[in-house]
């Protein structure tokens, strides 16, 4: 028995971390639903959810409860076993990769030297959830949606992979922690060295997560709801969660590879005015954010329309105020510094996702595939080549770091312009 415990010892802390990450991620995914509805509403001059809790803050809980309590319908002609377990595959594939993502310097994420490959590999398993769910429903719209999804995911995964390659070339390692540490060492986020790769990653991420303008698998004006048309209740909620977790996942990958992971902006720079580093004020940002939230909620209390509303506002204000106060305790702020900046960047990324959804029309399927194969992939390949050349110029021929890569970037942009010119915007099908 003691031998078994010893053998299991190294697995315990990672397991604990996985459990915590899973809980936090479920919360983030739920919060994302609220944020998405709210941001979209404000873009569209509406209010969005306002009824459940102050400014609809409790809406995600209500939605989740509703979905959990709904009947779990399995179509009569469905392939029962696969139908029941397909959503589980999606969720597992969307959540497992978080095991390898370091949220902070002091995060105990396993530092695997092929972490990036594992993340790509495991997250690509999510396709099976979609394709099997669509097939098992034994219905036309889900099957068509699943086929479209698969074609789209496979196509854009190539571009996504190439975009990641330039980051790992710069980082010189496949370890997520190593890539962030390299960014800290060089004192520059890779997005400033490889903006084209970042752009490709961003667009491919939109396509990978089926977000506007690539939300064809769920194009409600054409395919009803795509692969999850026949799903209801808890299993639908699982797909929903997988989708939002996948969004968080690609944002987390982009943050780690290109936006410096847990690093604070200007981590290596000092602007000293009268013997005081002004930029170190950024360290107090977490306190400022929660403090601001508290004050804003307190300001809302007099204007609230009912006592329940006031009470709810007060509770939320107390929670946020409590967090702000806890951050001021000795030792807490440095400990959460990394996590805060990581999540901050992730949320900026997620906000862009929502913003795009409010702005862009949808691509047609053939246009989407043409964009993927005829534009994104060639540009991504060219970018990798120029990134390699840049690496050579910088390491072997002692060029300036920025100069070496920006020459390549400009050349890539030139190629991109040529490609874009060859397929004019209004080209017919």
């Amino acid at each position, binding site marked *: 028995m003691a031998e078994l415990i010893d053998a299991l010892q190294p697995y315990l802390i990672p397991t604990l971390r996985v459990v915590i990450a899973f809980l936090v991620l479920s919360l983030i995914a739920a919060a994302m639903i609220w944020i998405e509805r709210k941001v979209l509403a404000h873009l569209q001059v509406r209010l969005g959810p306002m009824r459940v809790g102050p400014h609809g803050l409790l809406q995600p809980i209500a939605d989740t409860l509703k979905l959990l309590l709904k009947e779990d319908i399995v179509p009569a002609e469905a392939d029962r076993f696969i139908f029941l377990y397909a959503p589980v595959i999606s969720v597992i594939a969307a959540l497992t990769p978080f095991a390898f993502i370091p949220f902070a310097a002091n995060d105990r994420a396993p530092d695997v030297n092929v972490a990036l*490959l594992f993340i790509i590999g495991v997250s690509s398993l999510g*396709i099976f959830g979609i394709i099997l769910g669509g097939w098992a429903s034994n219905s036309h719209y889900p099957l068509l949606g699943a086929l479209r999804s698969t074609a789209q995911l496979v196509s854009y995964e190539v571009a996504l992979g190439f975009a990641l390659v330039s980051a790992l070339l710069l980082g010189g390692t496949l370890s997520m922690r190593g890539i962030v540490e390299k960014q800290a060492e060089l004192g520059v986020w890779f997005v400033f060295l490889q903006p084209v790769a970042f752009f490709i990653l961003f667009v491919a991420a939109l396509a990978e997560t089926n977000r506007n303008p690539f939300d064809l698998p769920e194009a409600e004006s054409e395919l009803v709801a795509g692969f999850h048309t026949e799903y209801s209740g808890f299993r639908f909620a699982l797909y929903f969660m997988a989708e939002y977790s996948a969004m968080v996942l690609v944002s987390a990958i982009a943050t780690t590879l290109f936006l410096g992971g847990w690093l604070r902006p200007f981590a290596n720079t000092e602007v000293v005015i009268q013997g005081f580093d002004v930029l170190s004020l950024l360290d107090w940002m977490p306190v400022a954010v929660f403090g601001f939230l508290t004050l804003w909620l307190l300001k809302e209390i007099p204007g609230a329309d009912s006592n329940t509303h006031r009470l709810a506002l007060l509770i939320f204000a107390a929670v946020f105020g409590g967090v702000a106060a806890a951050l001021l305790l000795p030792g807490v702020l440095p400990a959460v510094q990394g996590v805060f900046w990581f999540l901050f960047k992730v949320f900026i990324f997620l906000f862009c996702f929502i913003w795009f959804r409010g702005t862009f029309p949808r691509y047609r399927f053939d246009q989407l595939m043409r964009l993927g194969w005829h534009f994104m992939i060639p540009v991504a390949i060219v970018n990798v080549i120029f990134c390699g050349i840049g690496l050579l110029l910088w390491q072997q021929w002692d060029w300036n770091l920025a100069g070496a890569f920006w020459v390549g970037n400009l050349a890539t942009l030139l190629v991109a312009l040529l490609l874009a010119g060859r397929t004019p915007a209004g080209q017919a099908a």
Partner: protein
Amino acid sequence: MTFYLATFYVLGAIAVLSALLVITRRNPVHSAIFLIVTLLSVAGLYLQLQAEFLAAVQIILYIGGVMVLFLFVILLVNLEVTVRQEPFNRMWWIAGVAALVLLGELAVTYYLGRQAFAIPVTPAAALQPNTELIGRTLYQTYMLPFEIASVLLLVAMVGAVLMARRR
């Protein structure tokens, strides 16, 4: 060491069992799913051997790439016919005998040449950094075979495209 062995046997059993299920299921989608399970457990075995790069590539290429395309094609063709067909025809026992003979041959070969198979245990540290080692091996030591293999694959691809276009 018990934990290590336990995982090995569990993964091995899953791999063999689901490989059998791949060829015995009538529904090609089910077969594909079991093939995925087999490949996943093999990836697990790679991990046990400290070959995490291979494991990751196995997942990305075979499961995330090849199997997705498999399923894609299966969904495009008409399934009802295949479900009704017998997966084995009357010749199955000949194939069974052939397989048994092959197994016997392999066993005998292994037994006779057991000295040659006694590969010395490599210390785990020598296998790290895994990715770099594989990269060096592929692109320096075995550069020519690697390139020949890639040209071969390219030929196959061009051939497939040509055949598809002729239609």
